[in-house]
């Protein structure tokens, strides 16, 4: 009817607006890059001119004559520092960054979950006489020693990659559990039972059915420590629950296995809203 038509028009308008925004962003980016190219060209020309002057020996033995048109040594240094810092920040944001130390190397693993930056963990490694962990700030329930025993000596890249996966998955699971407790505590009955690794979560929540609510008990087992989604979901309801709820339980079980925990509950809330 009319509302459906209106919805469709709204959706179209929204799409068009998004496309428009994207295009504008692209153009901005392009303009920015063009300006950068000009900037760099200018610098290059200035440096070329300086090199020419030096080669022609016009600067003499007194040293560089300060010329406001040419970038001073200080300006060049500052530019170098700025671009280095940007590069290092880029590495830091990719998740694994390192710095050579007197006796080896110090790695920083920065974790994130779906766009939110979370904790950073450090590993101070010695490289002589063999690669070993000198000190670290990795939580004690992460199986660091096991991973090190497998990979540290033979393939340090793999070691870092496996550790990175463990840490990111852990903070991801923890984030989901925290979000659940923070934003959906009204849907949870009682307390959320968790553990240090956040690889077993047990809680009860209410499911509405025919103007009554029935409690579901959920056990989420995260068998893969490198994964932030559960490998096994067990939902049980009280014996007096209607048979139709078995279907709901199966559907929820599937949801928990595929979708992040807090998003599952988010979808419950919005499902309720759309029913009204």
């Amino acid at each position, binding site marked *: 009817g009319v509302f459906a038509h209106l919805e469709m028009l709204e959706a179209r308008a929204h799409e068009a607006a998004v496309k428009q925004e994207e295009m504008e962003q692209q153009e901005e980016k392009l303009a920015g890059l063009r300006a950068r190219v000009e900037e760099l060209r200018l610098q290059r020309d200035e440096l070329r001119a300086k090199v020419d002057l030096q080669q022609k020996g016009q600067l003499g033995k007194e040293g560089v004559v300060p010329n406001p048109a040419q970038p001073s040594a200080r300006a060049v240094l500052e530019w170098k520092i700025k671009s280095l*810092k940007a590069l*290092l*920040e880029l*590495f*830091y944001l990719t998740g694994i*960054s390192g*710095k050579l*130390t007197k006796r080896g190397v*110090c790695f*920083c693993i920065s974790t994130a979950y779906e766009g939110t930056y979370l904790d*950073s963990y*450090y590993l*101070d490694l010695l490289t002589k006489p063999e690669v070993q962990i000198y*000190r*670290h*700030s*990795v*939580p*004690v*329930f992460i*199986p660091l020693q*096991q991973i090190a025993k497998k990979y540290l000596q033979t393939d340090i890249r793999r070691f870092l990659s496996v550790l990175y996966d463990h840490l990111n998955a852990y903070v991801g699971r923890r984030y989901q559990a925290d979000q659940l407790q923070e934003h959906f505590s009204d849907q949870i009955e009682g307390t959320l*039972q*968790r*553990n*240090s*690794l956040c*690889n*077993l979560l*047990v809680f009860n929540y209410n499911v509405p059915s025919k103007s009554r609510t029935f409690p579901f008990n959920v056990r989420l*087992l995260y*068998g893969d*420590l490198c994964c932030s989604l559960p490998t096994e979901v067990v939902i049980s309801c009280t014996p007096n629950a209607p048979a139709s709820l078995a279907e709901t339980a199966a559907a929820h079980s599937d949801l928990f296995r595929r979708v992040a925990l807090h998003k599952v509950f988010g979808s419950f809330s919005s499902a309720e809203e759309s029913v009204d």
Partner: protein
Amino acid sequence: MDETVAEYIRRMVLRIPRDEIKTMLQKWGFLSETQLQTINFHQIKDNISQDVVQLCEENSADIKQAAVLDIIYNHIYPNKRVWSVYQMNKTGEETEFFDLTDFKKKFKRQLRSALKNVTINFREYEDNAIWIRIAWGTPYTKPNQYKTSYVVYHSQTPYVFISASVLKSNLPLLCQALLVASNYCDIREMELRSHSLNSLKDIVFKRYSQNFQTYYPRPLQERNAAPESADIRIIQENKNEKERIQRVNREVFGDGPQPKLEFAQYKLETMFKSDPKMNVLDKREPFRCLVKFSSPHLLESLKSLAPAGMADAPLSPLLTCIPQKARNYFRIREKKGFLPGSFVSP
């Protein structure tokens, strides 16, 4: 309500600082808000405790419920006890799904199978800490609620924090129950003791500030030196040395607060080195000597030694290795030089 329970509750309330009594009773949750309203918390503690006992009588409190109040008190004031750290080992490498209900069941079953007369209470906290309170009896007497052991365990970690039990004979029972419940193979006491439970946690969980070298830019404001005194006639003669000391100190101790330990003990079993002509010791025997450093906050005081000019920087690694080696009891034997890592016996 049992006479002993009443007396126990009365004594417990007397321990609590007056300003904290109401909040603690609210945390306990055994007395309703309306009941708490009837108590005048401004009267003398003797009378407050009598009122509380009276209300507990109305609610028929039993010893298990009274024990919960004890756990709450000890959780808020853990520093009144001395805590030791124990480390557990396991051989398997499977992923552990630590199930709290399972843990509690196994612990109780194991402990009760060895000794029937025990009161066991559990309480979990937000940071995954499980507090266990055990009141010990004997095969012939009821548990003595005034002789309690406390255990704090974080799931899926190999460390257990035990508040030194008065009855040393019960320790093996406790350890066995912990191993069975947490699925580990063996347990040993670490050489790490302190009143500050959180500092012990910081040390073994590696939560204390270690100065890791990274490229991540720290805000430049930190690096700005404090503004020099306005009078330019005042010059710091030792500026370079002071800065070196600050830098070295920072590398060793990190930027943040240090874990709180009260002492470090070094048992020396080294040979006495003297002029051979002096002939102090006829036999070539280790000169036994015990060096103990005590302080309200040992690591902070060590950190401030060099800047205060009382010691050279860097400090001896015997002192600075304490958090990293997670020990404050050392035994140093005669070998080629002092290397506490290799030559200290557990």
